[in-house]
């Protein structure tokens, strides 16, 4: 098969795949008697068409970038981290603890500390599976799944029995004061009025650049990739695989933790039950669709942010389309752009193929 030109590989093919996903999704929309074109229009409008919608898109994107990086980073080291959901959840504890301790202080002081403290909690929660993998050989896939479950129980107890203040009906911690919260962008930029996107968004952008640099521009990244591709060769190269596994898992947990900064520190200003709300699992899809590359992760996080926000708009505007419909469309996007991403490669490369020089023989 002739390789595709680079632009076709990077831009055209993914674009066609997204289109394909929407086509199939459109058929389903059609099947329930709705107008798919109108649906797409509403979706795009909802996601990008007005300030607060766009702000929501970016808010979701922030979560997905971090969750996606948590999966990608580990994957570069050959580890399949299914645990960002739990890691982010536990990190919420770190964020709220430091937030409450410094409640009333200016966010400029608290925000960095939330990042650090959240990262520590997230890292600790991910470190344990890392340690067990490195030292005991316990499969990180199982342990991270189990740790998601354990996190739910543990956090449920901590929130409802320890953090919950007197006289509050719902299970949640005391709130942070407005000045202490990570400021929302709407307080600087009028465009984002009413949307929850906050400074953490820029942290996400920075994280993408950072991860790019880390993975492809540092010795550490070199070691991570060596480990992920060939652990024996990594060992041969003088890299301590065990140490790397533990460090990388902890770092992945730290990235997942930023989901907590975004939500606990920025949006809700308190720790509530189940605030991660599946973002960790979306991160798996984001990471794989983005092929672990920060640019890809950024773009697929944006795509999912768009689907989440646009989908909300859709559910609101078209009563015939429910949130499950939107989950279905998301599934199709993952399927066509991620799993079947190469389906169109063959036909496409035939299209691009230059006429072969005469092959000789009979």
């Amino acid at each position, binding site marked *: 098969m002739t390789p595709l030109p680079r632009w076709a590989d990077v831009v055209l093919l993914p674009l066609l795949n997204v289109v394909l996903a929407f086509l199939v999704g459109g058929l389903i929309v059609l099947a329930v008697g709705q107008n798919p074109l109108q649906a797409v229009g509403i979706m795009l409008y909802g996601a990008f068409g007005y300030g607060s919608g766009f702000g929501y898109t970016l808010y979701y994107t922030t979560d997905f970038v971090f969750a996606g990086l948590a999966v990608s980073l580990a994957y570069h080291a050959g580890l399949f981290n299914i645990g960002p959901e739990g890691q982010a959840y536990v990190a919420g504890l770190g964020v709220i603890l430091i937030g409450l301790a410094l409640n009333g202080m200016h966010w400029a002081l608290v925000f960095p500390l939330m990042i650090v403290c959240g990262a520590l909690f997230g890292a600790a929660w991910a470190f344990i599976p890392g340690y067990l993998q490195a030292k005991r050989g316990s499969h990180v896939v199982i342990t991270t799944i189990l740790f998601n479950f354990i996190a739910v*129980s543990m956090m449920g107890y901590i929130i409802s029995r320890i953090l919950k203040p007197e006289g509050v009906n719902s299970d949640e911690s005391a709130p942070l004061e407005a000045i202490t919260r990570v400021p929302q962008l709407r307080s600087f930029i009028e465009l984002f009025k009413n949307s929850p996107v906050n400074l953490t968004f820029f942290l996400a952008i920075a994280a993408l650049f950072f991860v790019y640099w880390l993975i492809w521009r540092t010795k550490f990244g070199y070691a991570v990739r060596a480990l992920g591709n060939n652990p024996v060769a990594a060992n041969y190269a003088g890299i301590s695989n065990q140490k790397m596994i533990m460090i990388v898992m902890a770092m992945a947990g730290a990235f997942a933790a930023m989901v907590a900064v975004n939500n606990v520190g920025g949006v809700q200003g308190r720790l509530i039950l189940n605030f991660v709300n599946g973002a960790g699992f979306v991160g798996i899809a984001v990471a794989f669709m983005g092929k672990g590359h920060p640019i890809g992760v950024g773009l697929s996080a944006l795509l999912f942010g768009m689907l989440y926000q646009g989908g909300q708009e859709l559910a609101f505007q078209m009563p015939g389309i429910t949130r499950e419909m939107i989950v279905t469309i998301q599934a199709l996007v993952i399927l066509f752009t991620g799993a079947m991403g190469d389906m169109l490669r063959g036909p496409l490369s035939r299209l691009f193929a230059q006429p072969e020089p005469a092959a000789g023989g009979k």
Partner: protein
Amino acid sequence: MEQFLVDLTLILDSTVRLAVPLILASLAGLYSERSGIIDIGLEGKLLAGAFAAASMSAVTGSAWLGLLAGIGAALMFSGIHGLASINFKGNQTISGVALNFLAAGLTTFLGQSWFKRGGYTPQLSGDQRFNPITLPFADQIRDVPVIGQIYWELISGHNIITYFAFLAVPVTAWVLFRTRFGLRLRAVGENPKAIDTAGISVTRLRYQALIITAVLVGIGGAYLSIAQSAGFNNNMSAGRGYIALAALIFAKWRPGPALLVCLMFGFLDAVQFRVQGQVFPIIGEVPVQAIQALPYILTVVLLAGFIGRAVAPKAAGVPYTKER
């Protein structure tokens, strides 16, 4: 002592019921992963199977047709998985994740448009469900101490899918280690090139494995909605597909150990329900959340303490290509 035995039998009985969907899903995953295809989509297949089974059963009134529909739905999902990961050589993990999303969305969506109950199917009763079967002599020897109790409570009185699940374990072991198909299955998951150069189609073999996977997990889904409970509701698989996968890895991809691990999960859960709110000597009252997390924590401890490294089928996760 007598009471203890009774309690134990009841706990074990509950263990069996809780373990059945895990066993079926684990075995399903075993076929797929032994053939070299990672199946993180078990969760979605389970859900799709449960939905289709309940819907069909609600419409036709026959649990058996429901079961067939459950298998059918899982087959469709397996088909998509196969297309993505065998034909288009896509990433098996993404494909599985996509299936999980697809199942979550489609089941509720279709359920809503068919039954107008927000994704729930109607309550099922009578022949719409698989009801407990009383084994021969169960009633007669029920009063015999110990043995009667065990036979009546633990062995008899389950639905047909339960018996099927337990039967499926030795059958799987036999297929895997005693038949030509099993030999090829194990080979294709380890080294598909060896299969290819032996003149056997890797693609066909993997599809066969996926079909078996679908049948088993479809039955597991049907168990959830038309045997254990009486109808479908949103996200009713509730993570069981993931737990089954964990059990499979824990069991190092072997049927016997997989059964044991699933039973262990079931047992821990069954015990967990019963010790909630009890006051323990010395420790006092334990937060209910701690007790509920106990099965998972214990698994981690066992895993780290005794199990050691799990080596997956070597080719699992890698699409087979001849030309690099």
